[in-house]
């Protein structure tokens, strides 16, 4: 329709500029128009001056407009536009050859649809005007004679790399335009800014032709799976599964978390509305130490068009370390005994306890040597930093020396340790913490009131944050978990912990008869570590007052101790940006190294010792990051897909500083099955930002003509006459016809 009225494609008007071919000044046209309008006005208003002024104005407007247009045509207006010289320019056609192009929809694959487009006239149309080069777009961009060699088997489509390669080639080739025929699924990260900037600077219009359904009819697609990258053995791990579906709303599906085919956990879920993102949280046990390859899958349902996007793999490094937790208790308490018992059953936690039995005696348990902690609570950095978590029971604030208080602060802030304060008759506010520097470490302001501890019963309820916290899970199912907490026997005592500090989070509240609801379990991050208050010493009733087989008490304390020490770093911390690298070969390596005082160590030698599938072994020396002290960076190319183990090993002056192990997984082709719907948005954005256009396959007949108007390559500038475009005559006819109609109506013919 546009071309019918305006004679030329829209691109001509979009890209071209208006010129007056006579070379006469536009001001002459303005003056002539004004003069003509004045004459017409004088004639009209002298004749129609008796109460017909309004009608005269209408007629004057119509006539003046028509005269202005006719006069403009005398000036010979035209559109000046750059056009590609016929057969002197190259049009590069990038053909997506990745696996997703092999997906079948309505009886044919996307690849077949693409070939149909090319053979249906596009190839011939292009050939008539340009030299055409075809490229297969997969992991690499490969030149190909035509489309016959397409297999739709490439594990990945690197659109960005392909465009960057073409841009580089254009330095020596007269490339006039690019055509990308794809479903838009760049599984390697999308078009980067630099490539886009290069394309724009070269003025390449990128025309995109999209294939594949924009919305799948029947599909369940995993969008993301999140698991912790590392965990202690036997830890309860959370896995967050994000997915969406179309065509199965309201139906049941099963989410299965498995390792080597063995189901770790599973849950039936009801599928949400079409296209609505759905997030489910599952728990599973980390099990033994070592790298764990976890597959998370949503069960395939009947009629699903793409079953390749139902599963994702994640790697969890289960640490073999057994963190040491130091628990000091100010007096014999049942809580002490039952915490010890709960943690004794945990093979991943090494509990060391100090119990002040009498005024002058401290009973030590779990010590490594007879002399360890002989002097009581650690007074030196070496002694305290040997632990990863500290629990302070019913110990009054002034029991700790100023040195010990400072050490505790450094333990959390610098060492990254976890510190837990329990409630008791001589701790928190009742123990003088409100007036002690230890208050700085608490997630609450304890105040200075001394009657906050009550030996009265209190039940426990999880808060919203507690319901979501993995550490508060006694049951895997969130709803059952809330109920289980409500059914726990009452606590033997409780303490009003104080007012919350900014950033503190309450995971559980105590429901008391006289004091109402009180924060019971409060956590916060502090420096590199974390601190918490559990304002009771009465959880032991959960052990004594429940059936023997009930494990609530043990699970609670084991979970809490994992919160305490699970994230406590060692002197060397290896880190990966993620655990699974899909279709990426370059693996970034990062290690953070600290000295004995846990201050950044800059002069260490750090090596990454990598072992992988098929006996792959490599050693990469990491270099200090000039910006971040103590951080060492490196890169390594992982060619083979599979699981890799990386041991970061740091030495200084020939002595070992520490070592840490991480794992990652390389995958090829898996991600192609994801985002299998046509990514029209990406294709449209690419074409819009480069001056091209997004095309549907059935619209491409005009593409060769449109490509002609490009400023890249070898061009010539031409002027398209506008005097003879149909719209001008239509407007003139409308103006004249309107005047005639009005004159007849007003009886003034």
């Amino acid at each position, binding site marked *: 329709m546009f071309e019918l009225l305006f004679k030329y494609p829209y691109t001509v008007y979009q890209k071209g500029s208006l010129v007056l071919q006579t070379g006469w000044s536009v001001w002459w046209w303005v003056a002539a128009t004004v003069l003509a309008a004045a004459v017409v006005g004088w004639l009209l208003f002298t004749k129609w001056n008796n109460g017909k002024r309004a009608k005269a104005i209408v007629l004057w407007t119509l006539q003046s407009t028509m005269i202005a247009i006719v006069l403009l045509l005398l000036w010979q207006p035209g559109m000046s536009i750059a056009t590609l010289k016929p057969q002197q320019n190259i049009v590069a056609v990038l053909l997506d050859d990745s696996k997703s192009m092999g997906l079948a929809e309505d009886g044919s694959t996307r690849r077949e649809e693409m070939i149909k487009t090319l053979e249906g006239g596009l190839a011939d149309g292009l050939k008539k005007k340009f030299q055409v080069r075809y490229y297969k777009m997969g992991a690499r961009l490969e030149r190909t004679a035509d489309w016959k060699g397409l297999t739709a088997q490439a594990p990945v489509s690197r659109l960005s790399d392909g465009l960057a390669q073409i841009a580089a080639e254009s330095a020596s080739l007269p490339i006039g335009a690019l055509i990308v025929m794809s479903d838009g699924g760049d599984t390697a990260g999308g078009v980067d800014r630099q490539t886009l900037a290069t394309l724009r600077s070269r003025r390449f219009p990128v025309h995109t032709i999209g294939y594949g359904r924009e919305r799948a009819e029947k599909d369940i697609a995993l969008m993301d799976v999140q698991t912790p990258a590392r965990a202690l053995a036997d830890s309860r791990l959370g896995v967050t599964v994000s997915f969406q579906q179309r065509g199965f709303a309201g139906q049941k599906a099963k989410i299965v978390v498995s390792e080597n085919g063995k189901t770790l956990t599973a849950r039936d879920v009801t599928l949400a509305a079409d296209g609505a993102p759905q997030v489910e949280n599952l728990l599973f046990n980390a099990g033994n130490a070592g790298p764990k390859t976890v597959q998370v899958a949503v069960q395939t349902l009947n009629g699903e068009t793409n079953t390749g996007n139902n599963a994702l793999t994640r790697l969890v490094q289960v640490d073999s370390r057994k963190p040491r937790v130091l628990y000091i208790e100010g007096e*014999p308490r049942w809580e002490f*005994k039952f915490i010890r018992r709960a943690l004794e059953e945990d093979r991943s936690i090494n509990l060391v306890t100090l119990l002040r*039995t*009498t005024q002058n005696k401290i009973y030590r348990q779990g010590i490594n040597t007879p002399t360890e902690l002989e002097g009581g609570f650690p007074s030196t950095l070496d002694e305290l930093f040997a632990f990863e978590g500290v629990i302070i029971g019913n110990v009054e604030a002034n029991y700790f020396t100023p040195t010990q208080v400072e050490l505790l602060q450094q333990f959390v802030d610098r060492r990254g340790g976890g510190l837990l304060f329990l409630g008791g008759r001589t701790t928190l506010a009742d123990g003088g913490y409100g007036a002690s520097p230890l208050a700085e470490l608490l997630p609450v302001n304890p105040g200075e009131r001394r009657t906050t501890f009550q030996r009265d019963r209190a039940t426990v309820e999880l808060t919203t944050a507690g319901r979501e916290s993995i550490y508060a899970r006694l049951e895997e199912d969130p709803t059952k978990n809330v109920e289980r907490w409500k059914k726990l026997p009452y606590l033997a005592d409780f303490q009003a912990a104080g007012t919350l500090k900014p950033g503190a989070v309450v995971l559980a509240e105590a429901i008391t008869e006289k004091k109402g609801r009180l924060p019971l379990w409060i956590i916060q991050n502090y420096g590199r570590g974390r601190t918490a208050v559990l304002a009771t010493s009465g959880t032991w*009733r959960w052990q*004594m007052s429940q059936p023997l087989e009930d494990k609530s008490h043990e699970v609670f304390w084991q979970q809490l101790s994992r919160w305490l020490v699970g994230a406590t770093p060692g002197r060397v911390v290896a880190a990966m940006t993620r655990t699974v690298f899909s279709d990426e070969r370059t693996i970034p390596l990062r290690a953070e190294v600290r000295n004995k005082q846990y201050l950044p160590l800059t002069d260490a030698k750090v090596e990454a010792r990598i072992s992988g599938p098929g006996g792959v072994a490599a050693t990469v020396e990491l270099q200090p990051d000039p910006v971040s002290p103590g951080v060492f960076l490196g890169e390594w190319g992982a060619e083979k897909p599979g699981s890799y183990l990386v041991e970061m090993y740091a030495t200084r002056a020939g002595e070992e500083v520490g070592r840490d192990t991480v794992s990652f997984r390389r995958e090829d082709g898996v991600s192609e099955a994801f985002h299998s719907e046509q990514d029209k948005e990406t294709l449209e954005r690419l074409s819009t930002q480069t001056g091209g256009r997004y095309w549907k396959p059935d619209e491409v007949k005009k593409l060769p003509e449109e490509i002609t108007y490009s400023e890249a390559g070898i061009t010539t500038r031409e002027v398209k006459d506008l005097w003879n475009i149909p719209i001008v005559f239509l407007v003139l006819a409308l103006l004249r016809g309107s005047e005639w109609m009005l004159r007849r109506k007003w009886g003034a013919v």
Partner: protein
Amino acid sequence: MRKFRPLIIALLLGLTVWTALYAQRRMRRGMDFPFQESEDQPTPNDADEKTEFAFARLKYPNWKSNDRMWSMRGSWSIDYPKADRQFVQGVRRLSRLHVRSVEQVVDLESDEIFNWPWIYAVEAGHWDLTDAQCKKLREYLLKGGFIMTDDFHGSMEWDIFMLSMKRVFPDREMVDIPNKDPIFQVVYDLDKRFQVPGIVNYPFDQTYEYDGVKDTWRGIYDDKGRLMVGACHNMDLGDAWEWADSPQYPERYASLAYRIGINYIIYAMSH
């Protein structure tokens, strides 16, 4: 028959003389016996204080015997409440434990016992637990409770004690507690223990009762090597606590009894 007459007369005469002499001895002892039991103990002012620990005395059903005298001897309330209250005064003074000044009587009928993870059973050689009580005691101990038994003597009372205990733990052995066990080290080093006599042994020229010549320290362990049962056999720690304030009761026995009691409590609260 005639020829036995002198022998019968001699026996009757001997019995008469012995009876007269025995009666005189009992009378003399009753007049000089310094340990007069009394249940009329004043209630301390802080009896209602809510504390971490209370001395929980187990109330149990008695063994029925044809021997009326023997049957009358033992019961759960022997030394009650003076021994309990006097002992906790020592616990308060000698440890950091927050202890209630008065005892708590518990039984194996209700679930209240689960609020008191340490219990004391006196004269356990006279108990006769029902099957339901055995089951509850087993559950209590496996969950983390601890029972200390005391003041039972000789093989007969041991056997009766074990009749119930075997029904509590049919699959666990009662074993001698080695000296190196933490229960003998947790607060006081108690490697050198000796028999603590009851007041029945006054004036303590003999420290044992019946055939219980040697003090025995036995117990039952759980699967993780922690003591659940501490059986103090052939000794009377309860009497030692009760009469620690008496000048007639030797200090060395009372001191040991306090140390043993404190060790058993602190052990139960730390293992």
